[in-house]
């Protein structure tokens, strides 16, 4: 077999079967997947959460992760943000003709490892190959199903005045790590993406308290955009203490260099929790015991004032409005 993906690998014939069997399923094996039926048949009871996302990140392998890990974490996290326990994932590849086989293998391996860490099963999938130039090396779509335990009602519309806002760790790591590999930006750093599955962290938090009103992961658009969405959905105001928001020195350095604001840079392994005042400290303490919550901190609170707006209190005693990201995050050059 060639060491690059050919169009023929997507045709459905023998080459396709070989590709899928030898290089994909061999690594992700589980009883449901191994059946290789057209559909996976699942049992269900209670409320289900269902989500889908497509992953088109470039480069496909980056410091701290790759598009495969991202695809699993992204969907696992979306389910977790609804309070659901992630159970099953679908996995679809759209591969550009010419992708090196060993790169695909590396990504599949990463998918398997991440799925094992998150303890979810990939039960169905699809593989297509398109002409050179019709896809940017590899696109992945994952859809996920999870089960929401009884009594859990978590939504962006549930924030109420008095709630505390907890952030699980440093912001900006993922976006800057990706940018450091983009052409033309020309900077070097040891920063890695924070890409991580947060379902175990969320399970710990829900075990500690059911008074968690909102959960959201600040991906594209960053923390500022996510909090604006929640403020809008819940018709509340949000107040943040700028000096409490944790940012790594390297992220700060890169942002200063590029003229970016870390509050708008994407994260792939962080969450924001809006928690009833009474439960804030216990939930925070519990988060800090988890590897993905060790830097957790309270960054602000929900208020009944300035509904729909997020206000940032500077360390100088002044305040400013923090709006959503508009347009592309273009580095401010000058």
């Amino acid at each position: 077999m060639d060491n690059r993906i050919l169009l023929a690998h997507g045709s459905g014939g023998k080459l396709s079967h070989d590709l899928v069997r030898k290089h994909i399923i061999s690594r992700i094996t589980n009883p449901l997947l191994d059946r290789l039926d057209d559909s996976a048949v699942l049992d269900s009871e209670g409320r289900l959460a269902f989500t889908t996302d497509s992953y088109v990140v470039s480069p496909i392998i980056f410091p701290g992760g790759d598009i495969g890990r991202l695809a699993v974490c992204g969907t696992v996290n979306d389910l977790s943000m609804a309070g659901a326990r992630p159970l099953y994932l679908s996995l679809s590849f759209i591969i550009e003709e010419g992708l090196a086989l060993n790169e695909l293998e590396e990504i599949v391996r990463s998918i398997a490892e991440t799925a094992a860490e998150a303890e979810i099963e990939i039960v169905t999938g699809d593989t297509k190959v398109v002409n050179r130039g019709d896809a940017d090396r590899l696109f992945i779509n994952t859809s996920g199903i999870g089960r929401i335990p009884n009594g859990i009602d978590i939504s962006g519309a549930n924030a109420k005045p008095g709630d505390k806002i907890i952030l699980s760790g440093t912001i900006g790591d993922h976006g800057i790590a990706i940018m450091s590999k983009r052409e033309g930006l020309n900077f070097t750093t040891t920063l890695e993406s924070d890409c991580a599955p947060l379902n175990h962290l969320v399970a710990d938090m829900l075990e500690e308290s059911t008074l968690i009103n909102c959960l959201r992961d600040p991906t594209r658009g960053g923390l500022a955009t996510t909090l604006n969405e929640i403020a809008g959905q819940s018709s509340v105001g949000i107040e943040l203490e700028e000096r409490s928001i944790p940012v790594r020195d390297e992220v700060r350095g890169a942002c200063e260099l590029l003229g970016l604001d870390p509050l708008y840079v994407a994260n792939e392994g962080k969450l924001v929790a809006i928690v009833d005042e009474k439960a804030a400290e216990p939930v925070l303490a519990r988060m800090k015991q988890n590897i993905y919550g060790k830097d957790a901190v309270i960054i602000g609170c929900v208020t009944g004032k300035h509904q729909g707006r997020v206000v940032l209190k500077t360390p100088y005693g002044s305040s400013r409005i923090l709006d959503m990201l508009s347009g592309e995050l273009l580095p401010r050059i000058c």
Partner: protein
Amino acid sequence: MCLAIPARVKSIDGLYADVEVGGVGRRISIQLTPEVQVGEYVLLHTGYAISIVDAEEAEETMKLLLEIAEATDG
């Protein structure tokens, strides 16, 4: 149009230098500040060092700010 950042010069290679800001590295041109030395800081703007940061003046300004702070107490 003034975004320029203080960056530390780590090494010099002809009319280029490797600098760092908060641990992040970058290769820049020192065509406008050819006299800069390793260890000094430059103001970095669109890939060029446009000025060398005067460390003594920075200290003087800090001293002035601290004096103002003390005098403003009480």
